[in-house]
């Protein structure tokens, strides 16, 4: 295919521009590879012991405390995904089983006291399976 010199020059510039733009995702890929992320445990694997301890049906109570609302929401959302179709319902009222999450031990003590809960079992990442204290 023959092209006049002006057209050929334009196409050369176009090719150069295309290669420069293509370098952007390549640079991003190199950055991604260089980040060296740690392997993340899938939620189903991470929560398998806790989910196995939950009753198979019915809503489960949920209480949480941490430095920010976002951290509490994240802890709840992660467990909710793994525990589905069981629904984590906020609060303890009328619940035979309650999952508590706190970012540290001190908060856990306060949370248990505030809601009248006793610990049935402890799990990784700050989760505890609890039940209301008896009369």
């Amino acid at each position, binding site marked *: *295919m023959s*092209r006049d010199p*002006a*057209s050929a020059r334009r*196409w*050369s510039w*176009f*090719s150069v*521009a*295309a*290669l420069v*733009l*293509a370098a*952007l*995702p*390549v640079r*991003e*890929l190199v950055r*991604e*590879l260089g980040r060296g*992320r740690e*392997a*993340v445990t*899938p*939620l*189903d694997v991470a929560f398998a012991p806790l989910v196995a301890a939950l009753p198979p049906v019915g*809503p489960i109570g949920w209480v949480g405390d941490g430095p920010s609302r976002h951290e509490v*929401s*994240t802890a709840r*959302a*992660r467990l*909710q*995904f793994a525990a*589905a*179709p069981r*629904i*984590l*319902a*906020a609060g303890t009222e009328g619940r035979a089983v309650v999952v508590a999450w706190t970012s540290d031990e001190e908060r856990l003590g306060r949370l248990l006291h505030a809601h009248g809960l006793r610990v049935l079992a402890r799990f990784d990442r700050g989760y505890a399976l609890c039940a209301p204290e008896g009369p």
Partner: protein
Amino acid sequence: MSALLAFLAPTLLGLAVVAALDPAADGTRAGRLLRAVTGVALGAALVSASHAAILLFAGSSASARSTAKDLGFSAVAALAGAALWRGRRRAPGGSPPLAPPSPRVPAAALGAVALACLATAAILVVRTRAMPDGEWDAYAFWNLRARLLLRGGGDAGVVFSGETFHPDYPLLVPGLTATGWLYTGDGPRWVPAVGAFLWMSLLVVGMGAAAARLAGARAACLGVLLLLGAPNLAKVASWQYADVPTAALLLLAVTWYALALREPRAGARARLALCGLCVSLASWTKNEGLAQALVLAIAVATIPPAGLPRGKALLAFAAGAAPFLALSIAFKASIGPGNDLLAQAAPGSLLSRVTDPGRYLQIARSFGEEAFRTSAWNLLIPLALLAPALWTPAGLPRERRAIGTVLVLLGLAYAGVYVLTPKPLVWHLSSSLHRLLIHVYPLLVLAAVVWRGRLRWVPRPRGA
């Protein structure tokens, strides 16, 4: 067989519907590709809607895989396949190509496009391996809703429980994921990741096909490269959210609108129906889709195709939008609980937010800062916005006005949500603006590459 039918039948139906609405497509590869992308997108929405309904009404995943459903899907596949075959045999010569024949694109530019696509695919793989369950919204509600559809035993109270995050969000993405899980076993992590890859592919191929059909191969190359040059796109796609599907559907809707503006009356109506159809699929994907449908309806009513009265143009658009828009509205009205933004809005506080000038300044500042955030956009948003200053405008003024109107109205609609939001403004902006701009960015790119002419500072050749 069940799995194959579950995806094949709705996809064939989607392709047949698009082929029936756009029978006079030009015979170009770009035209066929655009129809195929639209058909596959419609097919995906049909897969999602049909299986969400089946899972809700069947009561269990075992009965959702029943033989009766297979027979129904076989009949749909056979009918849609036959319609496609007949349409192919009867296909007229087609209208002449819309874009002037462009010279062959140099191999280096094609190589650049291939390189960018490969790098983006690799980014998706790397990021998916690092986040096997997707990002926050994915496990908090998009993929959670899919799990609840599959495991909830058809109990709407469980599937759309008010104790979960955003139970009112539409079901295109969760429905597709639930369908994948229904046939591959409950919960393989690659299913939503494949869904994310599919929508990213539809966005990229859609951009290439749209730009090629409207302005030729060079515009297609540039469009795809500018799209993939923004790191935010691959990042959000790997999160398994619904923003990339929404962006793909909005891009298709605006492309069919632009094509309608170039067509004589009969073809224009069909393309407006396709525009309405695509934007209605966006409303089945994210709440923003409803705002996008309203924006496009206003644009179609304000700038209809030449020779087509406003009422008829709007009617054609509404006819295409009706099925999925009705489904989205019915879902909102009956199954989905109220939206959190509306539920928390009290009239008094609403007035104080509207009249607070500080909110407007904050929103404008955040929009500006986000557009210039190099780690997300590589300055490609300012570049695309500057395009009209760099190029002498080309193409039909009506098309340029139409896309300009859509962009301005979308910007106002999104900014309006931030003005009215009852959530803390700074938090709301920082957690969502980078995703909302993904809906608009492909339109900016399309406008920059399709309606551009000669560089302003390059003198015209003598005698031209």
